[in-house]
């Protein structure tokens, strides 16, 4: 069950009762890493950069697919993040119509949002590189 439905996550797992107990191992197996603070913002921005204007559901699905379900993402948590980005002026929102004719709110990058991607990407790469070097260092440390 966990394998086909990787989007099962904590809240549902904690929903209690027999079902929760039954689902817990699967959830753990499928969705490993919890989200790091700030990573979601960059993911959303990056998604909008590659896909162009997109609605919340689309962004959430894209993040799940790109991360190959390696992240435990509550799709709902995307909305407070979208609000935060909007408040900072990095994205804007407009009501529009989706491919299958449904009314939805579409988010797109602003100019400052584009600049922000560069900045955050750079800082992420630095952190990642540092971490990689750190982890690759031989045991025993410096001679």
């Amino acid at each position, binding site marked *: 069950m966990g394998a086909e439905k990787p989007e099962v996550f904590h809240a549902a797992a904690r929903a209690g009762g027999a079902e929760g107990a039954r689902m817990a191992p699967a959830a753990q197996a499928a969705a490993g890493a919890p989200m790091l603070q700030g990573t979601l913002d960059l993911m959303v921005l990056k998604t909008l950069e590659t896909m162009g204007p997109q609605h919340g559901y689309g962004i959430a699905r894209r993040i799940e697919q790109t991360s190959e379900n390696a992240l435990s993402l*509550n799709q709902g948590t995307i909305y407070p993040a979208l609000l935060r980005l909007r408040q*900072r002026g990095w994205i804007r929102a407009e009501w529009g119509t989706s491919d299958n004719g449904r*009314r939805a709110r579409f988010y797109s990058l602003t100019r400052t949002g584009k600049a922000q991607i560069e900045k955050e990407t750079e800082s992420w790469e630095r952190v990642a590189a540092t971490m990689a070097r750190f982890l690759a260092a031989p045991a025993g440390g410096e001679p």
Partner: protein
Amino acid sequence: MSRLRELWSRMRTVFGRHDADLDEELRAHVEMAAEEHRARGMSEAEARTAALRSFGGVTQVREQYRLREGLPWIENLRRDVGYALRQMRKSPGFAATVIVTLALGIGATTAIFTVVYSTLVRSLPYPDGDRIVAIHDTRIEGRSTGGLMTGPRFFDIQARNRSFESVAFLYFDESTLVNGTKLPVAVKGAGANAGFWDVFGTAPMLGRTFNAADDTPRAPETAVLSYPAWQKLFNGDRGVIGRQVTLDQRAVTVVGVMPQDFSAPGGVDLWHAAQFVPGNWGSYRGDGLRFINVFGRLRNGVTMAQAQGDLNRIGEQLGREYPQSDGAWRFTAETLREDRYGNLRPALAALLTASGLLLLIACINVANLLLSRATVRQREVALRRALGASAMRVAAQYLTESAALSLMGGCAGIASAYALTRGVALSLPGALGRSGAVHMDWIVAGVALLVSLATGIGFGLVPALESCRAGLQTTLRQSDGRVSGAGGNGLRSLLVGIQAGLSLVLLVGAALLAESLWNLVKQPLGFEPGHVLTFSLNLPWDTKPEQARNFYDDVEQRIEALPGVTAAGQINAPPTVDWHLRSSFDADWLPRIAGQPAINAENRTIAGNYLRAMGTALLAGRAFTAEDQMSKLPPVLVNEALVGEFMPKGNPVGHHLLIDGEAHEIVGVMGNVRGTSGSIAAEAGPEVYWPAHANGGTHFYFLVRTRVPPEQMVDAIRQQVYEADPRQSMGDIATMDQRIDDAVAEPRLNMAVVASFAGIALLLACVGIYGVVAFLVAQRTQEIGLRMALGARRSEIALLFVWRAVLPALVGLAAGTGVALGLAQLLRSQLYGVKANDPLVYVASIAALLIPLVIATLRPALLAAWVNPAEALRAE
């Protein structure tokens, strides 16, 4: 930058939420997800469940979103304000009491502050008004003449000073104005130089002011009208500019009208060019010329001290050049503000203190009320705390409630202070009553609003802190019927004590001022003010002496012949009129020192039956005769004060006063009269009375003693004046009683204000103590029942509660007596005939305060005594 944008965006959403938008977005999300699941072959129900599961908690998302969207503390504030308003609606009596109490305190303080700010803080209503100074001529030793200067000394300042851009003089002038074919009207004019308009700097509303060309001798005469005179005499006709009118039988052209709020000085109808030049008075520089008020506009950057130094230099030069006339005088400068309002400073300081005390009393009352309420709500608060509300949140809620109440009270108070100051501004005594002098502006209102907010928060803190302090467990465990007093009772007693003490301070102040006023009004004046009509009658100043004498004699005889008139007399300035004319004399019974005349005295000229009309006693000798009024070497009358000072053991009748090389025989001594130079609070000084028509005067007041109410005689007298000379008109008509009334208007107002504050304070203190006792009783009903069941008598129960409230009040009164003794020193300059520490005043005030306080405790205490013990014990 992006943080700022975030804050702005959050602020916006506080005032308009987008919940509907979010809901629609979330619904769309779930449906899209469900659709995808359905497309993979799930049933409708399965697809929906799966979609919701992958979404996570909708409620949590919405909650997060909402927190993110607005500003939590503003949200809380909004909720607290809503809660506070609901509480007010729930108990309107409580809310109304708090609001009215605060409105009284804030209103009183704001009204007084408006006056203080208008006079002592705000710039005077002239361009660069802070650079205008009043220059007084002051006798180095002894009494001055109200700062008045002689013309020659003014022109010397004008020629020699280095500090003033321009200097101005001004003198009062009563004239008769004829406009076209209308009847003549007496007007109050001011003669001024052209520099007057440069010093005061206000532009005319219509036309122009007079200039240097108008202010030269024999130039065509010009006049500038004041706004009230323009309205009253010319019906506000804009075509008045260029019109010729007759002023004292000379043709004068109206060249301008000043704006409504221009008052320099207050109460004049018109300004005309004096056309003085330095040579006007020949070589004479004597005191007979002291009649002009002098002002100057400081050059940019010149300080008051520099200007004073400059004036000292000129004064010393003149003293050396003219030792006889100028040696005894010096110039003193003060700001125009000081000149105009400086004498009000002590009274205003006292009134502001009094209003501050009243505000404090009101705040204490409110704190007490809030505290009582907080106790009632203790259990509710404890419950909320138990359910997870933080102490901070609960305190914040209390503060919001008291801040909301105080803002409402503050607004009500400010509105009533605005209405009050607007309503009475023009009827305030003296310089305060001038148009535009006293008015509230946004600064005053803003300060008042801040003060009310600060008091709301300050005194709201008391119950807020109480609520934080109260232990959760104890409160919740406590049953409804408390046997022991709950927390806050000690605090409440303290507040009652402070309130009683502060009320005493106000009451003592009011009592001291009331006694002063009583002393002032009831003192012997040296004349009988009842049944006396006074009015002025002015001829052109160049009327021939004989012609003037005949006219005034004629009018006097006509008036005395009227039925209802007992006596009529004339004087150049009656008591209570602010007028000065001092001279220095030698006396034939005193050693003579050249250049140092022995006697300096105020001069008045009188005619007709002056002494009888005024009711002033002739103590020795005789009054003036008709022959005296025509004498080439007129005799004089002197007053008791002159005799007392210069010939304490002897009869001056038959002796002589020497002035300008002539000897004037003293033919009589009259009683002292109060108010000769204006103030009836001042002791009478030496005075010399001259026969009015021996030297030819053209400005006189008539005093008419009547058997009927004096107002009834006005029309008959006006008819007689018209028959004597149709070109003349009565001016400045008032009964002597009215003049006395005006002379004490300021002390009476001060007394009335402090007394009303004291009355309000007393009322608030009674309400406060009543509330405390009622609260104690309500809180301890069960205890009362228990005590009674154990055999306590009803009177004991009642006494217990009276005592509980009166004891702190007594302690407060004792402390208040000390404070009052200290603060009464502030009033010292306002007191008349009573000492600031008069023990009788204090004892009476304590009694006046204690009696109503005790009575206020009686009702709730007696209610307590009539509690039915069985019911009280059963009550849960």
